[in-house]
């Protein structure tokens, strides 16, 4: 089992235009003036942190990833052909949540744009972390709790495996929402290159 903890300056992250458009539900150029206000502010508010564990996958009555046990056909299908997996968590930190609360006070349109930008930024952070963690090895796409049949109920064990509260300040509410809110957890399968 191998642990990684690292942080990134938000300035090195590249927002995907496709992701931004999807989050805004609108062509970005249509709201350019608001984007010009919020893109730099969201970047400035973020302290981008990632932690991950690389572990062998054991399959007997469910999937065992380190201390994490998962029952999910969806994840099993994704991890098919993989011997190892990365379990990861990423967050933009509490500063971005505060900025979003500020934006909400200024106006719902501002909140909407700021929130969309922050969502695109956390995806950009995950993309970058995925590249760095996989380091050129063939791998699956990210699969997150809440997708398909992978329940949110595994979040406490997943965050415990990662020691995510201590390492990157990520916690869960009683209803299993992640706080700070602009955070992502995911599992990535590392493909066995010989297969």
């Amino acid at each position, binding site marked *: 089992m191998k*642990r990684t903890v690292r942080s990134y300056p938000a300035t090195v992250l590249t927002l995907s235009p496709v992701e931004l458009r999807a989050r*805004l*539900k*609108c062509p970005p150029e249509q709201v350019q003036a608001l984007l010009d206000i919020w893109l730099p502010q969201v970047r400035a508010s973020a302290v981008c942190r990632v932690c991950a564990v690389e572990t062998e996958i054991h399959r007997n009555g469910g999937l065992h990833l380190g*201390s994490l046990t998962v029952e999910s056909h969806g994840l099993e299908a994704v991890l098919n052909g993989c011997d190892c997996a990365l379990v990861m968590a990423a967050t933009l930190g509490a500063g971005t949540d505060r900025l979003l609360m*500020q934006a*909400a006070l200024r106006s719902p349109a501002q909140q909407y744009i700021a929130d969309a930008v922050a969502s695109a930024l956390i995806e950009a952070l995950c993309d970058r972390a995925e590249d760095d963690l996989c380091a050129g090895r063939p791998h699956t796409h990210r699969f997150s709790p809440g997708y398909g049949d992978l329940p949110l109920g595994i979040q406490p064990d997943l965050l415990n495996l990662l020691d995510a509260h201590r390492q*990157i300040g990520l916690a869960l*509410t009683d*209803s299993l929402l992640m706080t700070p809110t602009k955070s992502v957890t995911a599992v990535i399968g590392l493909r066995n290159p010989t297969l």
Partner: protein
Amino acid sequence: MMNIMEAVARRRLYFDGGMGTLLQGMGLAPGAAPERWNLSHPDRIASVHRAYLDAGCDIIKMNTFGINELRFDDPETLIEAAAQCARSAIGDRTGKYMAYDMGPTGKLLEPLGNLPFERAVEIFGRCVRAAVQAGADLILIETMSDAYETKAAVLAAKENSTLPVFVTNAYDGTGKLMTGADPAAMVALLEGLGVDALGVNCSVGPDQLTQVVDTLCRYASVPVIVNPNAGLPSSVDGKPVYSIGPAEFAAYMVPLAQRGAAILGVCCGTTPEYIAALIADTQNLPYALPERKPDTLVSSYTHAVTIGEVPLLIGERINPTGKKKVKEALRRGDLEPLLRDGLMQADAGAHLLDVNVGLPDIDEPAVLVELVQRLQAVTDLPLQLDTTHPEAMARAMRIYNGKPLVNSVNGTTESMRTIFPLVKKYGGAVIALTIDENGIPDTAEGRCAVAEKIVRCAEDFGIPRKEIIVDPLAMAVSADPSSAKVTLDAIRLIKARLGVATSLGVSNISFGLPAREVVNASFFGLALGAGLDCAIMNPFSVGMMQTYHAFNALMAHDPNCASYIAHAAGWATPSAAVPAATPQKSRDVGGLKDAICRGLREEALREAQVLLQTTPPLTIIETEIIPALDEAGRTFEQKTTFLPQLLVTAETASAVFDLIKAAMPAAAQDSTRKVVLATVRGDIHDIGKNIVRVLLESFGFTVIDLGRDVAAETVLQAVQAHACKLVGLSALMTTTVPAMGDTIALLRKEAPGTTVVVGGAVLTQEYADRIGADFYAADAMETVRFAQKFYA
């Protein structure tokens, strides 16, 4: 055995090292709780303690880091077992101390998470009581990465024990806590709360801590603790390996000890060899306790400001006195206008914000607490808590996330007996008004005498005089021609004689005069010249801001006059800052409806003002606003425009609507079309709900917005209190949709006849049917259309 504080007064003390690394070597599985071993493997826990004691440490941390009632059903049993392990390791050694080790709850506190502050105090309090029972020598609060949670833990320690309290925070590579606090902010907060030693642990190695330790030693008057990791973790063959070895670690610690760190130790990734090397290299270095520092600090959750260096501006706008709109907002429980005012004062350049909600007919303690909690969520400016209500002051100081400025104490015995115990307990710098039972002295000498009495009384309460900021009171010069002179003389006298900082509510001086701003700005300049350290003032006053920036430029507070020049650019066109008072005719762009559709706020407001001169308000609503919104809604539904554009249109329409409503007789305003909105319990997402709100408001509905994470009972109460028949509920997560079902069930039972619309990312028609909703709205416009039909 001498108390640990007596011991630290004589020599450098050493903590032990990390427990986790050693236990994993003994077979503790990754992810398993080491605290369970207090019961199952007490011999192994004791052997780790013994190894560190053999290496020479003075203080061992009990194996209790993660124990609390959120994680374990039986904290008391585990804590008692941990104490037995520690005690058996100490055996008959003398001069050794066992620290109750209290780590974070693992939850984020409100408003960033959902753990209420008082609940955190309760959780920590239970552990502290068990620690006292188990015989701990001190409480060590450690690895805290959030200022607010740290405060909760310290309060719990102080309220449930008389043991010494040590606190170490986890600063990351940027030199801040995860939630943003810098070291100076933590010194202000922790010394205000009366901790016995403070410092840093975990997170990074000693090589990255120079800046943090320097700042801690620069501001702290209590001993500074440094317990770093052995560098950064990596792993070899599945086992964690840290980047810095024992000898290198000790070498990095030497300069930190020389910079003033008094208590040393190590954290994650370390073994007894690290402690032995650390002690060998640092025990013979010169040692002294820190000096008492003179700085007057107040802080927010991110940073501290020093009163007494560059003069500071305290924004005075959050105050109902003389402000009809603020009074109305407070009476209906709507704090948003006050929060927005706070943000605008921050934008305008205030360094602190005064917070006053004093109205006779509201529950001042409850409202002040809520406002402070919400303000400190959105602004990082330190707050000045301004109330004459003792309970309101006590509760606001308790939940404040930092060290507040307290406004105010005065020279009466009653005031000092009320305020000083609060300052002693919660920490704070205090504005002291030079008034006592005999009124306000007429002379500078007299005011200085009252100030001196207050300073001495504070010292009797154990509050150093640096925490007192004297306000020698600006009185209307129109009533007494010498009043300004007396105040200015008093500033000079008080600073010279008592050595304390000063503050003034500047604009009182011009009361009763025309063109008050001219007098205010001149007096402000004179007061700054006399040595005024902070001013309670209106940061939107251009004249006073000009005086302030000019003063700083003239007095070498503004290198290269950079700040002055930057601000002066904004003063060159003063009319731009003020909304155009006279409407301009510019009808060539298509009129009000077009301006609303295109979301051009200024233009729309201008058009509306022009129209109002010739057209009845209701006609404007019917022929301009509603058609504009209908068109925007229709193009959105046809997918030719997009949600952000619809929102901008709706906001513009709302602004115009407010302007037009102000011109309508009250009787003509239709406030019967009400909707109660809430994001349900457990869910902290409010964006969808806010979108629905702005659209409903723009269409003229009255929205009672209950916010996010709202209990079913609160929704019911609002429905009953406002006699509202239409409720909108939002939930974003599968885990919170059941709370939506519970809310509907409660409404069905207690308020039959209520219609419930539901929406949110994970909802579907099927799910809405299952939880018994009346209508499922797939997007915000559907909610509006439904509400229109409902009230048709």
